[in-house]
């Protein structure tokens, strides 16, 4: 019985690890300047924990195997070093693991969340609502119009609650359904929600941040690859949660300028 268990555990462990090693299912390539550190961190963790996982399961398996054998004197074999060795090993091994991970990891985290966006960054105002993202560019005047929740009217496409009648800055604001940004240019997002909690998740940016109703949350990134990527909501926000998405379109500088012109025209 113990032998069966040992074999089964070993098989499960090896198969599980195999899929990790073979990258059968894997992250999409990173396209942000801060993402590299995250990927590096992930590799570190994968190796470290992979070893622990393998060691733990195999140890369990092989002890179970031994335990099913013919051991005459039960007092004969004690775990070398007894409890103390176990405790010490745990503290040392896991301790080292933790120390290195925190040390390296906090840098990766800091680069994304603790450093402010460059002053020259392109500002985009992001509003999440049930169940879509809308993006606002300041328009030719470089000014964002003020927001008035009481003016919000999806029927007339006024998703943000702008007041063009009285607010000149709001008149040329560009509101679109996808986030279009120039490549290699720092982008500074300001996340705010119209109704409930949502989240901004772009796998390729290695980034996720919640929209919290009542707060404006800053988030900044620099995309290094031209292309079209999905922005999805990861915070349960209601019945359309699964369908709440938008596209991040990273364009070359000229394409972006062209796009901006056409938008301003409408």
């Amino acid at each position, binding site marked *: *019985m113990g032998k069966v*268990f040992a074999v089964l555990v070993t098989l*499960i462990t090896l198969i*599980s690890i195999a899929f990790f090693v073979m990258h*059968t*299912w*894997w992250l*999409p390539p990173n396209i942000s300047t801060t993402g590299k550190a*995250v990927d590096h*961190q992930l590799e570190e*963790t994968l190796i470290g924990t992979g070893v622990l*996982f393998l060691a*733990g*399961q195999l*140890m*369990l398996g092989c*002890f*179970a195997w031994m335990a099913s*054998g013919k*051991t005459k004197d*039960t*007092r004969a*074999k*004690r*775990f070398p070093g007894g409890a103390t060795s*176990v405790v010490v090993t*745990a*503290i040392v*091994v*896991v*301790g080292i693991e*933790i120390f290195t*991970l925190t040390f390296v*990891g906090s840098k990766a*985290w*800091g680069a994304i*969340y*603790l450093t402010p966006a460059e002053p020259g960054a392109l500002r985009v105002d992001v509003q999440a*609502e049930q169940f879509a993202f809308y993006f606002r560019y300041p328009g030719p005047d470089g000014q964002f119009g003020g927001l008035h*929740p009481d003016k919000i009217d999806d029927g007339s496409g006024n998703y943000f609650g702008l007041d063009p009648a009285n607010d000149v800055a709001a008149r040329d604001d560009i509101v679109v359904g996808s986030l279009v940004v120039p490549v290699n240019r720092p982008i500074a997002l300001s996340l705010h929600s*119209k*109704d*409930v*909690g949502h*989240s901004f998740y772009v*796998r390729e940016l*290695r980034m996720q941040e919640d929209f919290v*109703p*009542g*707060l404006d949350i800053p988030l900044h990134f620099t995309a290094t690859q031209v292309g079209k990527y*999905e922005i*999805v*909501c*990861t915070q349960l926000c*209601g*019945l359309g*949660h*699964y*369908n709440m*998405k938008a596209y991040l379109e990273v364009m070359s500088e000229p394409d972006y300028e062209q796009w901006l012109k056409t938008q301003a025209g409408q």
Partner: protein
Amino acid sequence: MHEVSTHPVAHQHTAPTGFIRKYVFSLDHKVIGKQYYGLALVSVFIGMVLSWLLRIHLAYPDYHIPFLSKLSAVGAPGGVMTPEYYLSLLTMHGTLMVFFVLTNAPFAAFGNYFLPIQIGAEDMAFPRFNMMSFWTTFAAFVVMMASFFVADGPPISGWTAYAPLSAVGRDAGPGLALGQDLWAISIAIFCIASLLGALNFIATTLDLRARGMSLLRMPYSTWAWFVTSVIALLAFAVLLPACVLLILDRVAGTSFFIPAGLVLSDKLQPHSGGSPLLWQHLFWFFGHPEVYIAILPSIGIIATILPVFTRRPLLGPKALIGSMVAIGFLSYMVWGHHMFVSGMNPFSANIFSVPTLIITIPATIMTLLLTASLYGAKMRFDTPALFCLGFISVFISGGISGFYLAQPSLDTYLHATYFVVAHFHFVMAVASLFGVFAGTYFWFPKMFGRMMSESLGKWHFWLTFLGVYCVFMPMHYLGLVGNVRRYSAFVDDYLAPLIPVHRFITIAALLTGAAQLIFLWNLIWSRFRGPVASENPWEATSLEWATTSPPPFDNFGGKHPVVYHGPNELGVDGPDGTDFLMQTAAPKSS
């Protein structure tokens, strides 16, 4: 064996007569324990069926399930789930499993039945409170179930009920009107019940220990229940006011969690200034300790059972107990790791991540102690033993993924993906349930006086063990691809290729679930047909095995056990050729 002492262990009360007092409103902790177990059993099977429905919908979105349209014509027109009904069932699955199964089965059920016996008491410290706490829990259960039958179904805000989604009411979507009210009320009631229960456990452990039962002589399970009840006492004491504030926001128009200027369903909400993050902080201050409320009792149960089958004392009893206490203590400093990307100050993420990683140390110590205790043993592979081994394996698997989620820098990618689902199902749900299974196979003879079928038990183990790995291991891969959880359908371009993986998981889940029917059948069959159990069939040392199976009303037939040893007297030269000493074994006076 027993020594009669005049030391007042528990107040004398006589066995009740009459069905109601005996089986329904009973003061007997053993009956109450069974009642908790029954409630957990009902909940776990409802929860399991819900998970089946969810899995089927994910893998085969267009598959018609006629029975669903019976359950809710609105929620599943023609047997196909609407997105909101998927979320309703998801919420109920989570709520039932976390509160009514993982909190009730290993802690309330087994704790109620065995904590007093293991410390040599006649009953709980406050039998009336004990009865109240069960029936309050039952009331909570009924209220929760009622939400299935209200107009637009159970709430869709998940078991974490994040505000403002859970707070603004019907404008936020179906299920968030009456359904969410019932949810909040039910949880509030559940908190009261758990507080009563925890209070009772603590008082019992402190006051009613038999003569000679020093704290360090208590079995690990008792220790686990004791530590858990302390955690529960403080955790539910925070969730309760949180629920009250939520209910006030919903029904009384206050603004604790709802900020100003929210527009839902084209209506400007009449609230101002509330803080959604406040709910998250209050909830997770309860929510994370809740994880340990679910897992610690199982660890204790495993640590109690394993030595009985390795026939040797567990490695480092003090280290194990110390780790439990350490975890209980640390569990209050880590709640923020659920909120790394919640929009709270990113500095605090680094701060919360440290204790979160540190808490893995006591966890590792416990796992290693359990594993190392197998070394060089001659093991008896009865079903409880197998589930002990299974527990260690899944606990390792689930614990490992904790390393990832404890790091903010990785959480930015993995948060709210199936990686998280895999993590907490392994470490919290499956591990805890393996503890419950082990406990059931181990204590069933004591509870019902009959052994459970070994062959059925073994089938149950192998299928379940293999099954859970097939169900939850692939979810790690889904998480790495960035498959978001709580989606009722996968419409994103990058999710379509993952559907086959989801199909595999669904089929595995259905089969694993079916394997649980073997367990259910085993319970029923053994209850009536199982071979009659002796007083101490497993040759264990703790006090519950020093009385008849099942124990008499006052547990020890009027005697007051006196304890001479710790629970670790295994692999020693016991009386008449046995290899163990009961805790009550009087030392040879030579």
